[in-house]
């Protein structure tokens, strides 16, 4: 029996529209559906509403940063299992640790490679 799959949904949150466009372009070409949010609050809300398979979240967003978003996703039962990949320009050990402490699954430094991001998304989703 053939089962039709709708493409997995990836939620991308970043206040930078260029990044949103780049990530969306790459992920859509790689076969994912993409929803975007331009701030942390919107990201948490959309995650709850849409139930994405994975979230790519920028750390440095105004109002609610990426760490906070991750924490909130982990706290709510309906979003707790969504894997999170954090995107950030801050990238030293202490900051990486903070990311994992908040519950993130992976960490990508900015400036980033869209292809590599796509590969990581695939890897993380593959692990689940």
């Amino acid at each position, binding site marked *: 029996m053939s089962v039709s799959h709708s493409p997995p949904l990836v939620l991308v949150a970043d206040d930078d529209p260029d990044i949103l466009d*780049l990530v969306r372009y790459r992920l859509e070409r790689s076969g994912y559906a993409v929803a975007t949010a331009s701030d942390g609050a919107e990201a948490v809300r959309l995650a709850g509403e849409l139930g994405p398979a994975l979230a790519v979240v920028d750390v440095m967003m105004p109002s609610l940063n990426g760490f906070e978003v991750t924490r909130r996703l982990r706290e709510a039962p309906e979003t707790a299992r969504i894997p999170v990949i954090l995107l950030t320009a801050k990238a*030293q050990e*202490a900051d990486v*640790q903070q990311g994992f402490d908040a519950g993130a699954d992976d960490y990508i430094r900015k400036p980033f490679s*869209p292809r590599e991001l796509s590969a990581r998304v695939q890897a993380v989703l593959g692990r689940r």
Partner: protein
Amino acid sequence: MLEALGIAALTLAALSAGFLIALVARRGALAREERRRSELEARLRPLALALVAGDDVELPELEADERAMLAEAIGRLSRRVTGDARRRVAAYFAGTTPFDAELRALRDRRAWRRATAAYRLGDMACGDATPALLDALADSDADVRAAAARSLGRLGAGEASGALVEALVASSVPRAIAFRAILDVGPDALRDVRRLAADPDPALRAAAVELLGWLGDASDDALLIDAVDDPSAEVRARAAAALGRLASADGAEALTRALDDRVYFVRLHAARALGHVGERDAVPRLLRQAREDRFESARAAADAVARVDPDALLEAAASSDAGPHLHEAADLLRV
């Protein structure tokens, strides 16, 4: 007198008219320009995205102004990406007219044009620009130097690291920009930075040590631990901060010793670093600092204990001589 006033009145009236004309003309020109640009951009952005985000794109024949717009769109996107995407951008720009134009503009007699050129060359990601940018690093104009430094960083030009470190130390480029550029160059700059950590000039050592906190890795622990005993307080403080940023467990002992430093900001950075390192053995010493030291270093110590051993903090805060910083840290823990 009356004539003078008359002339003045006429001049002023003419000036007014001049401004009015300038206002109207400029507004019209700017509006047209903007419309044209947004139309162009809407058309060319998908192309730029495709090229940068990783597809092999068939580039259509473009007019000169379209090419310029595309170059700009790609340039902006290139700031966000690295790795294969940057290489694709570089491949696109290599040998093209926009690239050559900007290279030439590096020798323009107007400083602002040189600065813009230096900046754009960084976006174009073509390593061929490195020698010209290195020259621009010594330009007489501050903005040009800053843009050149930033672009050299973006190009990841390892051969520029020495010059960038020099620029940082000589303050010929704003500190933030030189710093960022060196970080962008990344591991290739490490050799120069490590060498600098042994320089006779304390300002250079301090800069090097701070950079190692961002660029370095575990192999730099030994160097940084030594630097915590440096004769210069600035170096000691930054070495402590660097160890914290690297979350270096090996540095814990040196950091704990640094809590006894004469200089308060060394104690401050040592306390903060211990919070990141997570050294439980240092907690009693940190608690003492939180009770007795100056405002800033006491608070740093209290914050560190909150990270490392929250239970110990709550316990210490309950005693009568706890002091304001322990109280604050404890209250924040319970929030």
